C-alpha cells in the first residue's frame, strides 16, 4: 500500500455506508451551494472587537485530528476522525480569556436557507472549552459533506448532535442561554447533555450503554 492508501485506511470508519438519519438530515437546509471564497466565520458578542475569519485564516491555525464519538439524540452514535481547530484557538484570536467564562454562552448560527431560515443553538462556553470542542472541517480525511456541515461545524462531544451547528457561519459570545431551533420546534432539552441510555454504534453495529452522562470516551 502507498502512503495515501495507508492514511485513508487509518482514517476510515467501518460501516459508514450505513447512514443513520441524522448523517443525512439537515434541519435548516442544506444550502444549495457554498462558495468557500465567500464563506466567513464571524465571531461577535461580548468581546472587544468583532472578528471575521475566512476559511484560509482558519486553515492557518493549529490543525488537529481527533478520534472522538458523537452521539445523536435519536439514539445512535459514531466514532470518527474529526479534523479542524479547537474552539479555544478560535476564541483566543478573538481575545476571549478561557479562564473567565462564568455565565457566558456560545450561540452558533448556521448559513441556513431562504426557505427554512437559520439553525441556532446555544451552549455553555466554559463547558465547551473544557471538553475541547472542535470546529471540524473534515471527517475521516475528507472535507465534510454538505449534509454533514460543510464547510465547518462545531462539535461539543459531551452534547447531543443537535446542539452543534452544521454549516456554521457565526459564533456569538453572550450571557443569554437561549433556546435553540430544535429545542423550540420539537421540545428537546436546552441542556443537551448525552444521557445514560442505550445507543446503536454505527461503526461496530452493536448497542452500547454508557457508564456515565456526557461524552462517551470509554470505547
Amino acid at each position: 500500500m502507498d502512503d495515501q492508501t495507508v492514511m485513508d485506511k487509518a482514517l476510515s470508519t467501518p460501516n459508514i455506508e450505513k447512514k443513520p438519519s441524522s448523517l443525512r438530515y439537515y434541519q435548516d437546509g442544506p444550502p444549495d451551494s457554498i462558495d468557500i471564497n465567500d464563506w466567513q466565520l464571524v465571531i461577535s458578542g461580548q468581546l472587544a472587537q468583532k472578528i471575521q475569519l475566512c476559511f484560509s485564516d482558519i486553515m492557518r491555525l493549529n490543525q488537529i485530528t481527533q478520534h472522538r464519538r458523537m452521539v445523536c439524540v435519536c439514539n445512535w452514535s459514531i466514532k470518527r476522525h474529526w479534523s479542524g481547530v479547537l474552539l479555544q484557538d478560535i476564541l483566543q484570536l478573538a481575545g476571549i480569556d478561557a479562564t473567565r467564562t462564568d455565565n457566558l454562552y456560545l450561540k452558533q448560527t448556521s448559513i441556513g436557507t431562504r426557505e427554512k431560515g437559520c439553525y441556532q443553538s446555544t451552549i455553555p462556553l466554559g463547558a465547551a472549552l473544557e471538553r475541547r470542542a472542535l470546529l471540524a472541517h473534515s471527517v475521516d480525511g475528507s472535507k465534510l459533506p454538505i449534509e454533514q456541515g460543510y464547510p465547518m461545524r462545531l462539535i461539543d462531544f459531551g452534547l447531543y448532535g443537535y446542539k452543534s451547528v452544521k454549516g456554521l457561519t457565526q459564533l456569538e459570545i453572550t450571557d443569554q442561554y437561549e433556546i435553540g431551533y430544535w429545542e423550540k420546534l420539537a421540545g428537546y432539552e436546552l441542556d443537551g447533555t448525552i444521557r445514560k441510555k442505550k445507543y446503536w454504534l454505527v461503526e461496530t453495529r452493536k448497542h452500547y450503554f454508557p457508564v456515565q452522562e456526557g461524552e462517551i470516551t470509554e470505547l
Partner: protein
Amino acid sequence: MDQSISGNNMLLITAGKFIMGSELYPNESPVRKITMSSFYIDQYPVTNADYKRFIANDGYNNPDLWSNNGWRFIRDKNIQHPLYWHDSNWNQDQQPVTGISWWEACAYATFVGKSLPTEAQWEYASRGDDGRTYPWGHIQPTQEYACYSEGCEPDELDRKSSLVTDHPKGIPKGISPFNCFDMAGNLAEWCIDNNSDDYSWDTKRHNPLYLKDENLHHIARGGSGLHDEDYLRCSSRDFYPPTLRDNIVGMRCVLNLKEGNNDNG
C-alpha cells in the same frame, strides 16, 4: 385472557404476576417478578381521529385537564394542536397521534377519563406472563411484525407512521398476548413513570410506579420507526423530557380499577 370494553376498544388485563426487565442493559435490571392488579388498556394507540375530539372539545383551553406545569407549557408556547397535526405523513385518522408532549398525553388521558400506563402496566400488557422477548414471542422482528429502522437507518428521511392496525401484517400471533396491537415500533408510547437508572428502587414489587417530578424525563416504551429492532423488545426502555414533541412518541391509555398503584419511587 382478555375482555374488551364495548365501544372503547379497551382490553382487560387480568391481575397476575409477570417477569419485568431483562439482564441485557443496566437500566432494565434487576429482573423481578412483579404482581399486577387488573386494569384496562387501549387495544390500539390513540389515533388522530381520537385526538380530534380532544381538540374539538377545547381540550387545549381547559385548564382542568392539565397539571400546572403542563398548562404553563402549552400557554407559554401557544400550543393548540400536536406538532405534526398538519403534516399528511402523520395526521391521517388511523395513524397514531404524535408530536405530543408528555403533558399533552396526560391531558388527553384525563379528557377521556383514563390515564397513561405505568411502565409496569405497559410491559405487562406487551409481554404477558411468559417472559417473551417481543409482543409476539421470541421470533426476530421483520417489517411485517413492526415499523422500525434496522440499524437506526430509515429507508426514507421523509418518514411516516403506519396505521395502528397495520402491524402485525398477516401474522395472527403477532399481537401481544392480551391482544394489543402496535406495541412494538411505529411510535414509542409515553408512560407515567420518570426515568430511573435501574429498578433497584422497586422493593415492593407490586404495581410499581417511579414518579419523582413531572418536569423530569419520562419513560417512552416500544420503540419507533426511527429506532432499531432492539427497542421493540418488551423490556426495552427509552426516555425523554416531558416537553418532547417529536414524531417518535405517541400514547395509549389505561383505565385503572379500584386498587391503585403503589408509588415506590
